[in-house]
C-alpha cells in the first residue's frame, strides 16, 4: 500500500469522520434489515425477525469501533482520550498541575527571553553579506588611521577584495524647524558595496562621488528618514543643509541596516568621504578601515601581508605604522560583550536544567502515588506502550501549556530586557522573539517534556501488577532506587541554584562597589546639553565668546537654576583629549616622557555647577579672558604625579611646544578634586582644566583646522529641583539668540552616571532574575520532595509516635532528610562555583570571584530557604494523629 493511499484514507476518515459514522450506521442498519426481511420470508414476525437479525449480527458498537480502528481513526481518538484523561487528572490535582505549569513557564520563559538577546547580539552574524570575511584594520586594534596610511595599505595589499574607510562626522542639520546635531559618517564610495547592502530607496554612492567637489550626496538611515522626513517616499533628490552646506538625498537605507558596527553605532546619515589635502597626511588619525578578505585568502595571510607593508612604511615614515592590527569585524563588535553573554547563557542552561529536574521529580513523585492506578490499568489489559504513551501525553500537555505561558512571559520579558538594556549593547534594537527564539522555545519545550516524561513513564510502566495490587489499599511504597534518583535531582537543583545565586551575589557586590565609587563631582540635580554654533550666525569668530557668555548668563538667570557653566566635553559622556605639556624651569623631556594630562576647557561657573571642589587655590573667573595672562586648574592626581613634594600653585606650564611665545604659558591657579573622566572604574589620571575664553581655537579666531571642530559648548546647569524639567527652558534660552543653533545630547548627569554603569547593572539584573527563579524552583523542589516523602511515611510516623516518639523527634526525622539534601547540594554547588566563578572575573569590580562573604551568605541563605521548605511538611507530620495514621492501615 502506498503512503498516498494511507494518507488519503486517513484524511478521508478524519476529515469526514462524521460522514463515516453516518455511512457505518446506514450500512449496518441496511444489513440488519435485509437479513430481517429474509427471516420474515421464512415466516417470522417483523419484531422477532429484527431481534434475531440483530443477535446474529453481534455487537453493533464493537463492530463500529473495529471499523474505526481499521482506518486508523484510533490515533486521534486515542490522543483525544489521553488528553481528556490527562486534563481530568490535572484538574483533580490542581496544585500539582499549577506548580508544574508555573515552574515550566518560568523556566522556559526566562530562558527564551535571554536566549533572544544572546541570539541577536552574539549568535546572529552581522547583517552584512558574508560578514565572516570582513575585517577591521586599526592602530593597536582600536585606534584610527591616517589617510595616507589608508591609501598606501589599500594600494599595496593583495589580500583584500575591497578596503574602505569611514570617518566620524556629526554635522548640524539646519534650515529646518528644530536644528539638530546628527551623528553620521563620511565613507569611501566602495564601503557600502563591500558590505553587500542595497538601499531601500534610491541608490548608493557612485564611483567618483568621493572625489573633491563631487561629495555632496547623502544617504539617510531609515530612522532619520522616518523622524525628520515623515517617511516621505519622494525624498530622493531633495536638498538638506548639513553644517551650512547643501547636500542632495540620494538614498535611504533599509530599517535593519546599521553602520558603523562599533564606535559610531548611532550613525544616521552617510556622505562620501573626499580626502582633499589629507591624502598626504600621516598625522591626524581619524579613519576606521574596513576590508573584505579576498576569496581563498586566510586571515593569517592577510595579517602577514599588512605586517610586511606596515614594517616597510614604518622604516620610511618612523612612528606612523607601529602596531597595526587586523581584527575580524565580528570579534571587534562582539568582543567586549562576549563574556557577559556567555555567563548569561550558562545561567540560561542552569535554569533550564533546574526546571527539568524539578518537573521530573514532581512527575516521579506523582507516578509513585499512581502506581495503583497503573497496575489496575495494566491488569485490565493496557499494554506497556499504551501506558508510556499516556504518560508522555500528560507531560507534553504540561510542556505545551507551560511552553505557551512561557512564550507569553518571553515576549513580555524580551520587551522589558530591551527597555532596560544599556544602549551600548550592540544590535540590542534588533532583539525580538523571532523564528530562532521560537525554535529554541520549541526545542526546549519538547526536550523538557519528553525528558521529564520518559523517565517516570518507563519506571511506572514497569510496575509489577501483582505486587502492587496485593498490597491492598495502602498504595505502593516506593523503591529505594527511585528515591535515590529523586534525591539526586533535588541535590543537583540545589547545587545549580547555589551557583546561580553566587553569580548573582558577586554581581550585586560588584554593583554595590560601583555605586560606592566617588566620581569627584556631585551628579545629582545636574543637566547638560550640547549647543553647536555651526551653521548659525553665532559661528562667526567675533561673536562666539560674546554669545557663549550671554547664553550662560541667561541660563543662570532661569528660575530654578542654582549655578551654570560650560565645558567642551562632559566627563563620562563626551570625548576625551589628552595632551602633553612642559613645566617651566624643568629640562626639556625626552620624546615620549613629557607629562601628559587630559585636557578640558571650561568657563567660569563649571566647577560650581558640577560641585567639583577646588581643594586648593581658586576657580577661573570672568576676568580670565583672552587678554589676561593664561591660567589652568589641575587635578589632585596631576599635582601628586608631576609636583611631588612641591606646591604646583603659581607654577607655569605650556601645552604648546613654542615656549618662546609668552601667551602659551599658563599659571596653575587651583587644584580640583579628582573626577571621573572616561570610565567609571578607571583610576584617576592627571587632568588639566583650561580657561575656554583664553583659547583662540575655542573662541574661533585662530583660523586653524582644529578650531573648525570646536564650534560647540556643553552647557551644564545645577537645578534646585528636578533637572530634567529645565531642558525645554534651556533650549528656548539658546534658540532665543538664534533659531539655527543645533542642540543635542540633552542629558542629566545622573543619567550619564547610570549609563556609565548600565552594563554591570544590566548583568546584575539578569543574573539576579535568574537566581531568583532558580531559588524559587529549588525551594519548590525540596519542599515537594520532603512533603511527599513525609506523606508517604505517615504510617511510619504514626507507629513511632505510638511507641513514644515526641513531636520534636518527628520534626527532626523529617527535617534531617531535607538537611542532608541541602548539605549535599551546597557542597556540590560550592565546588562548582569555585571552579566556574573565575570565568566571571572580567565582569567583577571590587570583589574577587571567590569572595568568601558572598559564598557564605549565599550558602547560608539557601540553607534557610531549605529549612523553611522542610519545616512546612515537617510541621504537618508533627500533627499526625497516631491513632488515625494506624487506623488508615
Amino acid at each position: 500500500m502506498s503512503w498516498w493511499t494511507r494518507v488519503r484514507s486517513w484524511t478521508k476518515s478524519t476529515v469526514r469522520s462524521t460522514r463515516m459514522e453516518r455511512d457505518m450506521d446506514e450500512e449496518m442498519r441496511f444489513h440488519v434489515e435485509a437479513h430481517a426481511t429474509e427471516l420474515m420470508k421464512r415466516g417470522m414476525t417483523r419484531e422477532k425477525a429484527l431481534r434475531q437479525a440483530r443477535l446474529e449480527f453481534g455487537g453493533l458498537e464493537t463492530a463500529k469501533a473495529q471499523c474505526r480502528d481499521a482506518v486508523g481513526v484510533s490515533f486521534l481518538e486515542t490522543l483525544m482520550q489521553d488528553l481528556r484523561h490527562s486534563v481530568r487528572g490535572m484538574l483533580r490535582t490542581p496544585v500539582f498541575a499549577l506548580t508544574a505549569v508555573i515552574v515550566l513557564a518560568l523556566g522556559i520563559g526566562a530562558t527564551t527571553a535571554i536566549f533572544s538577546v544572546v541570539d541577536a547580539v552574539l549568535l546572529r552574524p552581522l547583517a552584512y553579506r558574508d560578514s565572516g570575511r570582513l575585517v577591521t584594520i586599526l592602530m593597536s586594534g582600536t585606534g584610527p588611521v591616517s589617510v595616507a596610511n589608508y591609501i598606501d595599505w589599500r594600494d599595496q595589499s593583495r589580500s583584500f577584495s575591497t578596503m574602505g574607510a569611514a570617518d566620524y562626522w556629526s554635522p548640524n542639520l539646519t534650515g529646518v524647524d528644530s536644528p539638530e546635531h546628527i551623528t553620521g559618517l563620511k565613507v569611501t564610495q566602495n564601503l557600502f558595496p563591500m558590505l553587500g547592502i542595497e538601499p531601500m530607496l534610491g541608490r548608493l554612492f557612485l564611483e567618483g562621488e568621493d572625489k573633491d567637489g563631487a561629495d555632496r550626496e547623502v544617504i539617510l538611515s531609515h530612522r532619520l528618514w522616518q523622524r525628520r522626513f515623515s517617511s516621505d517616499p519622494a525624498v530622493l533628490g531633495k536638498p538638506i543643509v548639513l553644517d551650512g552646506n547643501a547636500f542632495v538625498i540620494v538614498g535611504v537605507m533599509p530599517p535593519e541596516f546599521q553602520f558603523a558596527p562599533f564606535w559610531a553605532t548611532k550613525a544616521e546619515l552617510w556622505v562620501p568621504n573626499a580626502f582633499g589635502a589629507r591624502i598626504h597626511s600621516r598625522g591626524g588619525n581619524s579613519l576606521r578601515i574596513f576590508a573584505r578578505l579576498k576569496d581563498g585568502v586566510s586571515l593569517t595571510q592577510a595579517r602577514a601581508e599588512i605586517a610586511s607593508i606596515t614594517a616597510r612604511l614604518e622604516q620610511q615614515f618612523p612612528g606612523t605604522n607601529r602596531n597595526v592590527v587586523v581584527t575580524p569585524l565580528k570579534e571587534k563588535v562582539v568582543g567586549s560583550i562576549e563574556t557577559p553573554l556567555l555567563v548569561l547563557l550558562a545561567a540560561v542552561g542552569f535554569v533550564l536544567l533546574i526546571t527539568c529536574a524539578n518537573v521530573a521529580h514532581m512527575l516521579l513523585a506523582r507516578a509513585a502515588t499512581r502506581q495503583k492506578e497503573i497496575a489496575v490499568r495494566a491488569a485490565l489489559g493496557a499494554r506497556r506502550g499504551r501506558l508510556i504513551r499516556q504518560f508522555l501525553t500528560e507531560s507534553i500537555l504540561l510542556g505545551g501549556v507551560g511552553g505557551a505561558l512561557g512564550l507569553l512571559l518571553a515576549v513580555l520579558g524580551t520587551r522589558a530586557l530591551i527597555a532596560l538594556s544599556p544602549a551600548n549593547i550592540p544590535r540590542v534594537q534588533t532583539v525580538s522573539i523571532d523564528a530562532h527564539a521560537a525554535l529554541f522555545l520549541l526545542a526546549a519545550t519538547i526536550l523538557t517534556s519528553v525528558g521529564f516524561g520518559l523517565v517516570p513513564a518507563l519506571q511506572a510502566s514497569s510496575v509489577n501488577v501483582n505486587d502492587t495490587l496485593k498490597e491492598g489499599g495502602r498504595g505502593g511504597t516506593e523503591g529505594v532506587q527511585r528515591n535515590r534518583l529523586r534525591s539526586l535531582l533535588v541535590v543537583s537543583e540545589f547545587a545549580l541554584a547555589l551557583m546561580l545565586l553566587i553569580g548573582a551575589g558577586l554581581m550585586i557586590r560588584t554593583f554595590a562597589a560601583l555605586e560606592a565609587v566617588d566620581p569627584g563631582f556631585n551628579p545629582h540635580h545636574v543637566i547638560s546639553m550640547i549647543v553647536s554654533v555651526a551653521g548659525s550666525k553665532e559661528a562667526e569668530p567675533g561673536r562666539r565668546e560674546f554669545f557663549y557668555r550671554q547664553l550662560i548668563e541667561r541660563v543662570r538667570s532661569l528660575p530654578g537654576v542654582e549655578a551654570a557653566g560650560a565645558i567642551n566635553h562632559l566627563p563620562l559622556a563626551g570625548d576625551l583629549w589628552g595632551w602633553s605639556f612642559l613645566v617651566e624651569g624643568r629640562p626639556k623631556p625626552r620624546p615620549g616622557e613629557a607629562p601628559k594630562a587630559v585636557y578640558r576647557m571650561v568657563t567660569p561657573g563649571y566647577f560650581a555647577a558640577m560641585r567639583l571642589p577646588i581643594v586648593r587655590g581658586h576657580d577661573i573667573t570672568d576676568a580670565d579672558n583672552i587678554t589676561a595672562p593664561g591660567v589652568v586648574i589641575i587635578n589632585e592626581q596631576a599635582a601628586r604625579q608631576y609636583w611631588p613634594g612641591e606646591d604646583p600653585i603659581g607654577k607655569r606650564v605650556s601645552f604648546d611646544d613654542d615656549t618662546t611665545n609668552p601667551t602659551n604659558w599658563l599659571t596653575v591657579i587651583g587644584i580640583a578634586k579628582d573626577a571621573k573622566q572616561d570610565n567609571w572604574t578607571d583610576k584617576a589620571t592627571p587632568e588639566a582644566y583650561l580657561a575656554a575664553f583664553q583659547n583662540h581655537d575655542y573662541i574661533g579666531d585662530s583660523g586653524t583646522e582644529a578650531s573648525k571642530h570646536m564650534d560647540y559648548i556643553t552647557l551644564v546647569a545645577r537645578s534646585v529641583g528636578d533637572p530634567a524639567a529645565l531642558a525645554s527652558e534651556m533650549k528656548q534660552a539658546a534658540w532665543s539668540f538664534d533659531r539655527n543653533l543645533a542642540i543635542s545630547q540633552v542629558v542629566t548627569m545622573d543619567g550619564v552616571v547610570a549609563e556609565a554603569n548600565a552594563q554591570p547593572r544590566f548583568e546584575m539584573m539578569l543574573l539576579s532574575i535568574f537566581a531568583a527563579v532558580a531559588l524559587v524552583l529549588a525551594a519548590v523542589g525540596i519542599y515537594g520532595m520532603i512533603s511527599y516523602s513525609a506523606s508517604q511515611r505517615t504510617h511510619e510516623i504514626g507507629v513511632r509516635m505510638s511507641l513514644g516518639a515526641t513531636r520534636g523527634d518527628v520534626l527532626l526525622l523529617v527535617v534531617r532528610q531535607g538537611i542532608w539534601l541541602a548539605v549535599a547540594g551546597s557542597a556540590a554547588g560550592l565546588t562548582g562555583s569555585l571552579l566556574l566563578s573565575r570565568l566571571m572575573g572580567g565582569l567583577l569590580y571590587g570583589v574577587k570571584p571567590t569572595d568568601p562573604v558572598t559564598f557564605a551568605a549565599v550558602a547560608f541563605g539557601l540553607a534557610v530557604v531549605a529549612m523553611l521548605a522542610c519545616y512546612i511538611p515537617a510541621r504537618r507530620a508533627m500533627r499526625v494523629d497516631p491513632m488515625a495514621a494506624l487506623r488508615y492501615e
Partner: protein
Amino acid sequence: MSKQLDLLQGTLDMLILKAISLSPLHGYGILLRIQQISNKRLEIQQGSLYPALYRLEHHGWITSEWGESENNRRARYYRLTSTGKRQLQAETERWNEMTAVIAGILQATPEQL
C-alpha cells in the same frame, strides 16, 4: 446440511475479495454470496464483516459507492480495484501452495519417510 466450520484466521479477507471479484456487492450480499458458494458450511460472524471491509478499503484493494439494492433501498456496494485483483491473485496462490504443503504433510505415510 453438514456441521458449520469456523472460519480460519485471516481467510475472511480473501473470501471477501473473491466474493466481490465476481460482481460488485453490498455487505449483506457478500455474506449471502459466501454462504451460497460454501453451501452454508462456513460460519461467518456477521459483525466482523464490516471491519474487514473497512480494512480492505483502507488498503486500497476495494472501493465502495452508494447504489440501490434489489428492493430499491440505498446500499453500499463494494468493488475490487486493480491492486485488489493482484492481491487476490497473490493470496490465492499462497493459499493453494499452503494447502498443498499442509495436505502433503497430513497425507504422509511411514513409507515415505
